[in-house]
Each structure stands twice: as C-alpha cells, then as structure tokens.
C-alpha cells in the first residue's frame, strides 16, 4: 500500500522532469571538465525541456487533483503548461544562439531557466495559496538571477537588483493578502475559499470586507508580476538591462503564469466580491494601455519600446479580464498564447541583432537591415504586425476575442479605449518596419550568421503566430472548454 497514488506523480510529471534535468545540469556544471560544459548544458536543457513538453501530454491524460487537493490538473493547467514549457524550449534554443556571442554560456544559466519553469508550471497547477506563493517565489528568484546574468554589465546588475528589491516588496503584499484570506475563511484552498466566502465563519459583512482587502493586496502583488499599471514602473529598466533572451522569457513565461493564477484566484476564490474588484481591473486596464502605448511612442531603444509595449499588452489582457465570464477567461488564454509566441519571436530577433555587449539595440541600428538580412527582418516584421493585430496573425484574433469578450460584457467604453490604443500602437511598431525597409543604414551593423538554433526559433514562432492567425479554432475551443472546467 502506498500513501501516494501513482497518478499523483503522473500529474506533476512535467515538473518532475524539469527539476530532474535542472539537478543534472548543476551536477555537470559542478563536476565536469571546463571548456565545452556550457554547450553540453545547452543540449541537456533542450532535451529536458522537450521531454517536459512531451510529459504535458501524459499529465493531460491524468486529470484530477493531487496532494491533498493542492494541485489540480485540468484543461487550464495543461494549456498554460504547454505555453510556458513551449516558451522555455524556444528560449533555450535562443540562448544557444545568444550566449556564445556574449561569451556567457554556462550550464547554470540553463539550470536556472529550468528551475524557473518548474516554479511557473507549479504555479499554474496549484489551487492552494501557499503552494502558489512558494512556486511564485521559485520562479521569481530564478528570474532575478537570470536578469543579472551579464554580470559585468552594470545595466544588467542594476536590472537584477531593481527587480529583486521591488519584486520582494510586491510579494509582501501578496503574502499579506493570503494571510487575510486565511483569516476570513479558515482555508487557503481556492475552491474551499469560494465555498467559505458564501458561508462566512465570522459575522456577515466583516468577512466580506476582510476578503475584499485580501483581494486588493493580492491584486497589488500580481499586478506587479504582470506589469500592469500603476505597478509597472520596474518594467522598462529591468527589460532593458536583462540579457535579451531573458527579457523575452520574462515577458512571456512568468507573465503568462502570473496571469494564470490571477485568473484562478480572482475568478474562483474571490468570485463573490467580483463587483468590487472589477473596477480595480477596469482602471488598471485603462492605465496600462494608455501609459504603455504613450511611453512606447517615445522610445528609440527597441528593448525599452517592447518593454512599454508589454505593459500595454498586459492592459489588453486586463480588458478581457474585466469581462468577468468564461469568454473573458478564454480570451485571456488565447491572447497570452499568441502574445508569448510573437513577443519571444520579436525578442529573439532583437537578441540576434544585438551583437556583443548588446551594442545594437537602437531603432536606428535597424536601418536598411530588411535587405541585408531578409529572413530575420521579415520574421521581425511579421511579429510586429502580429503585435499590431493585423489579420492573418495570431495577434489579430487575440485582440478580436478580447474586444468581443469585453463587448459581450457591455464594456463599450473600455473596448473603445482599447481599440484606440491598438491604433496608436501601430505607429511605433510600424516605425521599426520603416527603418528595416525604407531607411539607409548609417553604419553597417555586423550580425552573426543564422545558426541552426536561431532558425528553429524563427520557424517555431512564425509557425505559431500564423497558425493562430489562420486556424485559431482549435486553440480557442480548447481554451473555452478549459475555462468552463476551471470555473466548475
């Protein structure tokens, strides 16, 4: 007789695989010969993340709760596991292209990446607040270190330190929120919280108020993680300073995971006080879109511009969030899937062109690249068009579903602001395209040849962006089903 049924392990198989390979990487890094350890680490990490991706299928075949109902495998978990682990695979490949040019390739980088992914996947599957908190910290600490990975570059160190300090600050709010939830309901399991909030243990309005305050505090913590205004201030500096592939990773994986728990906590546990936190989301959505887009207009550094644009995209996601229904959830999920693909793709091209010490990250450096490096430049244009939301790209349907969800919820004003914002955003994305194809280069920048790893990254991202733009159906159906499952 075993205390823990075997399915429980199947249900956390991706996490087990990732953690195992992370440990192996540490062993290689510690005990192996100096020299090509970094390259070896890269292959091990690639293998690990691919196996973990495969393991999600096994996970998906074993739906249900695990470990005292702290972890739950449902469509929602599986969807985000695919997105996050997929992003990790792409970032590993991208790092194989980027790190050697920067002379930074070491196994620990990949180990940190895998451990961070473990945290994120646990995050999206957890339905218990303490578990969520622990996995949030696992993922955050890895990301703090990765952001400072170019340790000889002051910008990178600065980025890491800022992220760490402010991140801890925000996490404190989140933790306090958890404590209040426990105080109000006597449990930290999300579905139990939902039930308990209907039959409070303390007298009537009191518990309601405490729960609402808890919601506000958790909103602050999570708002920071998804870089929603007014908690977005850290984003530009951190994104600019971190190594480009890490920036791509930060804007994708942790963000998707944070939105996932955002959804679970607010739609499930705090469902009963939806009318009150709705306005927080509403205002945060407007602020994020407007601040992000207006500030992005003024940037010339591409990494900074994409940082501000990611704030704006967090705003679009919050628009769907404010719809308060299953359509909202599925729109958020679809949008994030498309966003992860196009944003990592864009950062991939930026990191490819960045060169040693990230010299070429200004929009002026991109003048005339369209004809000198047709393939990466074409891909970059495609990702930018998708970020604008041009039809036949994933970004178009992402926006369409977000707007539709908001309209179905009768949020006409919010939708109009969102549409106006997306029109405004076209301007700064197109500026990059103009530089790529219609300006004479001032200086012929040197770009490394396309490596196999980089080509694979491009193929993967382009394929996903186009696939979501032409056949969005299956993904959306899956998302709708998962949304219904999650709310049950």
């Amino acid at each position: 007789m075993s205390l823990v049924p075997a399915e429980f392990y199947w249900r956390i198989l991706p996490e087990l695989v990732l953690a195992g390979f992370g440990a192996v990487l540490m062993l290689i890094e510690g005990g192996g010969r100096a020299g090509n350890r970094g390259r070896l680490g890269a292959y091990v990490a690639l293998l690990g993340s691919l196996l973990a991706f495969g393991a999600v299928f096994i996970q998906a075949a074993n739906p249900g709760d695990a470990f005292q109902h702290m972890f739950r495998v449902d469509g929602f978990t599986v969807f985000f596991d695919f997105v996050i682990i997929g992003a990790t695979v792409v970032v590993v490949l991208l790092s194989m292209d980027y790190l050697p040019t920067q002379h930074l390739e070491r196994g620990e980088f990949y180990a940190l990446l895998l451990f961070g992914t473990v945290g994120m996947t646990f995050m999206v599957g957890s339905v218990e607040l303490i578990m969520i908190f622990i996995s949030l910290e696992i993922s955050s600490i890895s990301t703090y270190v990765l952001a400072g990975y170019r340790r000889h570059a002051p910008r990178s160190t600065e980025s890491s330190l800022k992220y760490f300090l402010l991140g801890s600050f925000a996490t404190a709010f989140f933790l306090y929120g958890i404590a209040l939830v426990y105080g109000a309901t006597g449990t930290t399991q999300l579905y139990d919280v939902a039930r308990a909030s209907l039959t409070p243990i303390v007298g009537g309005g009191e518990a309601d108020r405490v729960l609402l305050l808890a919601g506000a505090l958790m909103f602050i913590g999570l708002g920071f993680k998804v870089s929603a205004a007014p908690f977005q201030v850290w984003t530009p500096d951190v994104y600019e300073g971190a190594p480009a592939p890490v920036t791509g990773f930060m804007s994708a994986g942790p963000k998707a995971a944070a939105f996932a728990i955002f959804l679970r906590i607010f739609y499930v546990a705090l469902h009963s006080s939806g009318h009150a936190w709705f306005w927080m989301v509403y205002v945060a959505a407007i602020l994020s879109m407007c601040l992000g887009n207006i500030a992005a207009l003024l940037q010339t550094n591409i990494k900074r511009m994409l940082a501000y644009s990611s704030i704006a995209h967090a705003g679009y996601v919050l628009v769907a969030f404010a719809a308060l229904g299953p359509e909202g959830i599925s729109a958020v999920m679809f949008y994030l899937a498309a966003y992860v693909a196009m944003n990592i793709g864009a950062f991939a091209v930026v990191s490819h062109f960045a060169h040693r010490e990230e010299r070429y990250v200004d929009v002026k450096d991109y003048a005339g690249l369209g004809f000198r490096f047709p393939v990466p430049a074409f891909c970059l244009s495609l990702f930018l068009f998708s970020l604008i939301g041009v039809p036949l790209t994933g970004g178009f349907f992402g926006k369409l579903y977000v707007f539709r969800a908001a309209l179905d919820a009768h949020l006409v004003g919010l939708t109009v602001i969102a549409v106006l914002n997306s029109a405004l955003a076209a301007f700064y994305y197109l500026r990059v395209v103009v530089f790529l194809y219609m300006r004479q280069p001032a200086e012929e920048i040197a770009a490394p040849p396309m490596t196999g790893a980089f080509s694979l990254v491009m193929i993967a991202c382009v394929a996903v962006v186009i696939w979501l733009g032409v056949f969005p159906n299956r993904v959306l159906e899956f998302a709708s089903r998962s949304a219904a499952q999650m709310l049950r």
Partner: protein
Amino acid sequence: MHPNLHLWLIPFLCFLGFACNLLLGRTWSQKTAGWVGVLFPAAAFVDALWVVSQWSRITVPYLETHSPWIAAGPLTIPYGFQLDQLSLVMMLIVTGVGLLIHVYSLGYMAHEGGFYRFFAYLNMFMFFMLLLVLAGNYLLMFIGWEGVGFASYVLIGFFFRKDSASAAGMKAFITNRIGDFGFLIGLFFIFDHFHSFDYTTVFAQVRQMPVEHAWSGLLTVIGLLLFVGATGKSAQIPLYVWLPDAMEGPTPVSALIHAATMVTAGVYMVCRSAAIYDRAPLALSVVLATGALTAIFAASIGILQRDIKKVLAYSTVSQLGYMFMACGAMAYGAGIFHLMTHAFFKGLLFLGAGSVIHAMSGEQDMFRIQALAPGGLRRYVPITFWTFLIATCAISGIPGFSGFFSKDKILYEVLSGQHPNAFWWAVGTIAALMTSFYMFRALFVTFLAGPETAALSHPTGQEPRAVEAHSVDAGFTAGHAEHQAAHPPAHEAAHPHESPASMTVPLIILGILAAFGGYIGLGDRFENFLAPVFNTGVVLPTHPAASELSVSLISISVAVVGLLLAWFYYVKNRQAAENLKHSLAGLYRLVFNKYWIDELYGLVFTRPLAAFSRVVLWRIVDVGMIDGTVNGIATFARGVGSGLRRQESGNIRSYASWVGLGAVVVVLYVLVVGVR
C-alpha cells in the same frame, strides 16, 4: 443541382503567383519572373471566365462556405465566398484590367530594379482585392480591405530609396487607418446587433427594419461609420489627401490600384451595403453631398496641375465622387456602371501617361514634355496618342464613348431618381464642365506642339511671382521648384519613342473597351442585370424633374464647351490664358496650391500633434514624470563607476514609492467602496 465553382481558387491563384515570385523570384531571370507574375493573374482571369460560363447553371446568390474559420460559441465565421451579379462584375474588372496592367508592367518596369519584387507585390494586391470582392461576409471583406491597403502601401513605397516615395506610402497608410477605424467600429455595431457578419444573414434582418427618419437610428450610424471607411479607401473629402501623393509609385501601380480597382473598393462596399443605406436617408444625403463636393473640388484642382499624373490623380478623386453621388441617389447600378467604365478609361489614361513618361525618359511635367518634343509628342507616339484621345473623350462625356453613358446616367438619377437633389445635380454638371476642360487641356498640352518652344524649355519656376512667366502655369509655388530640381534637364537629350508591344497592346485593348464599353448599358441593360442585388425592399417614388433627353443635352453641351474652352486657351490663344491668370491671380494661386489643404491639415492636425507630443508628452510626461522618477538614466550611464550606489538607491526608492502609492490607492478604494 448546381456545380461547385471553387471560387476560392481565383484569389488563391494570385496568391500562388505572389508566393512563387517572393520565394524563388530572386534566383530567376527578369524574364522568367515577369512571365510567372503574369501567368497567375492570367490563370485567375481564365478561371473567372469559366465561372461566367457557368452563370446560367447556378442560383444567385451563389454561396460557397468552407470549413469554419472562426467558430467560438455564438460566433461562427466561415471562409465564405459569395457570387452574385455585383461580385461577378467586380471580379471581371479586377481580373481583366489587372491582367492587362500586368502585361503592361512587363514593358514598363523593364528598366527598374527589383522586378520580381514588383510582380510579387502586384500579385499580392490582386489576391487581396479578389478576396475583398468575392467575400461572403464583412470580416473576410475587411481582411481584403486591409490587405489591399497594405499592398498599396508597399507599392507606393516601391522606390523606397526615394524619401518622398516612402513618405507618400506612410501618408497613404496612416490616412487609411483613420478610415479603417470608422469601418471597424461600424463592423462592431453590425455584429453587436445582427450577431453575424454574413451578408445574407445581416441583410435578411435589415430588410425587416423600417426606413429610419430620425437623426440617429442604428442603420444611420452604421451607414455613416462604414462611409468613413469608404472616404479613406476611396479618397473622398476629407481623407483624399493621400491619393495625389500616392502617384510617387510606379505608373502601372497608379493605374491598377489608384484608378481602376482598389480606390473603388469604398464604392463597392457602399453598394454592397445598399440595404443599410436605403433605410438611412441621412447617411445617403451625406454620401451624396460628400461625393458631389469631392467631384467639383478635385476637378477644380485638376485644372491647374502641371504634372500629368497629378492631373489624373485629382481626376480619379473627382470621378470617385461621381460614383458616390450615384450611391447617394440610390442609383447603385449607375455607380457600378461608372465604376466599370472608369476602370477602362482611367486605367487607359494612366497607362497612356506611363507610356508618355516612358517615351520621355521620366519627364512628368506636361509643359516640359511639350517643350521637349518639337512638333508635338503626337508624332512620336501615335498609338499612345490615339488611345489617350479615346480615353479623354470617354472621361469628358463626349457622346458615344463609354464615360458618356455612365456619367449621364448618374446625373440623371441625381436630378430625378429616388433620392434626388437638384443642387447637387448642378454641382455635378459644373464638375463635368471642369472635367472636360482639364482633360482636354492635358491632351492638348501633352501631345500637340506648343507655341513658343524655345522659351518653354527654360521655365522660371524658381521665381515665385514672375509676371513675365513664360509658360502658362509656371511659377507660384516652391513645390514646383523642387519638382524641377528632382528632374534635372538631363532629359532634354532624350529622344521620344513609342513604347514596346507589351505596353501598346494593353493600350489598344483598353482603348476599345473605353470606346465601346458603354453600349452594354444601353436601355438600362446593365442596371437591370444588377438590379436583383440592389432590390433591398425599399422603393421610393422617382421625381422626374426633367426628361432623360434634356439632361443628356445639358451634359453633352457641357462636355463640348469644356473641350472648346481648352482648345481656345491652350491651342488657339495662349496669351488669353496668360491674361486670365493675371486678372484672377488670387483665385489662381488658391487653386494652384490645392486650396492649401495639405498645409491646413499640417497646421490643424500634424503640428498640434507634434506640439502636443513635444510639450505634454515630452516636457511633462517624459521629462517631468518619467525622467523625474527615473532620475537620469543618462547620468547613470556616464557615471557608472563611483556614482552607482547613490543613483541606484535613489531610483529604487522612487520606484517603490510609485508602487506604494498605487497600493495606497487600491486599498483606500477597497476600504471606502468595499464596505458599502
């Protein structure tokens, strides 16, 4: 049992051409790339003809749906195509005229770089345009709509090394975004109310609705929003400014996109939505007034342009105005009829202009062309001249030519159709006089011998108010001086020559169509063919204010007067034109400078926007808020070493206080509002 037409194949063929040339064109010789680029549109044209041959075997409208494209909950949008009389006509125009212009491009673009790229883009344009006209729902139409806009943007900027060309491309794109914004909101309204984008579903519900009389009914709002989109794409007031600039693109592009097909997409869309407009009298009146104003406004600018392509550009804007007049008068059939004849004669005019420019090695200024071709250009390029003459007669409404039938029909409908307005009819008639005048002026100046050849070859464009200007239109703008600078007198040595067969054959074919294309409209046959599409359930009594014959007589006399005036001022007595110019100097400068609309837009929109970004965004938001908080990233970059610690802590503190401030606001909100 009707046959499966596989309509999707028609756009798809053009897409294949695009893909082949884009992916493989680089490795091919110029000849192969060109023939591949022509082959696929030709195949699409043949396919379109086959579809026509099946016409009697299908029930109209013929709907073709493929696997659902988007199916989520209540929203189902298939990859749907629809064939009815309207899309049939549009499909034939796009593939037929498109094919001729592809063939023409083989000759015209032979001396330009990036041959394969050009054909790839041209095929891409055809793909999106066919998607637009064959779509069975608004969403697919919108994708075609955006796609043609994008194709136009890259083709205008084709000579991207020329700054003015890429600037013109940007202008076109941004102006169109403004229009598309209205269109998109209109689509949201449609979906919100009818829960579908399908034409059949939407119009079936619209037909149940009454005619709106109020100022703000749902259909009126939708109609006006859709029309905002149409003003962008079809270059109507106030969004017409991009089209003249778009002439920076290669001439075949101007012919295909900015004359024959893309710019008519707005007209097509309004006609397609006839059921909505028929029930929204206010929207109809706006369409009618905008069309008429644009027609006369653009025609008046066209009178004084010197650049042959600019004349044709303003003429296009003006003719599109006529088509909208027809729509506004509920005479959609007449509008489509004019759209078709316009595709013939305006395509021909542009191709003819291209042939002239080709012959003169790039010269576009009509007065310089006249000066550079001793004895008149007519002698060197006879085919071009005769076809250009036919097209000029057609656009001016000389009886017997195609344009006469369609324009006359529109004017008659505006005066005495279902939604008549005598005032706009008068405006349209005066615009017709101007049209005849400026087109014959262009013809005479370009092709006939000038009076004072020697003097004309040294225009004094640099001297703004030269009283003793040698040529009729010389001077008055710095813009003209720039034009001179852009075309150094190196061309003077050029020997005018007739174009190769690949260019003249399309000219001749289009010439035949422009001359005789109007006869299919005799006895309202064309409109009766289209009538089922525009049978929207609303029938208003007509108001015959005058007989068709008397309206025709007025139109004819107007056209002839225009012709005679042009002949008098530009052939018989040049001095008279000169005198007239000086006696009306103020008016002349106003019109010659295009009413300073571009400058006005610069003053009203561009500059305040720039000032806004400078003062508010930069000074206050950027310098005040962002820089203030960030506390000088730039200083940080300079003083990396020693100052690091101090700078750092300052930054983080201010960041943390931002987060803290946000937190305080959120918590306060919860405490105040949450307690209830």
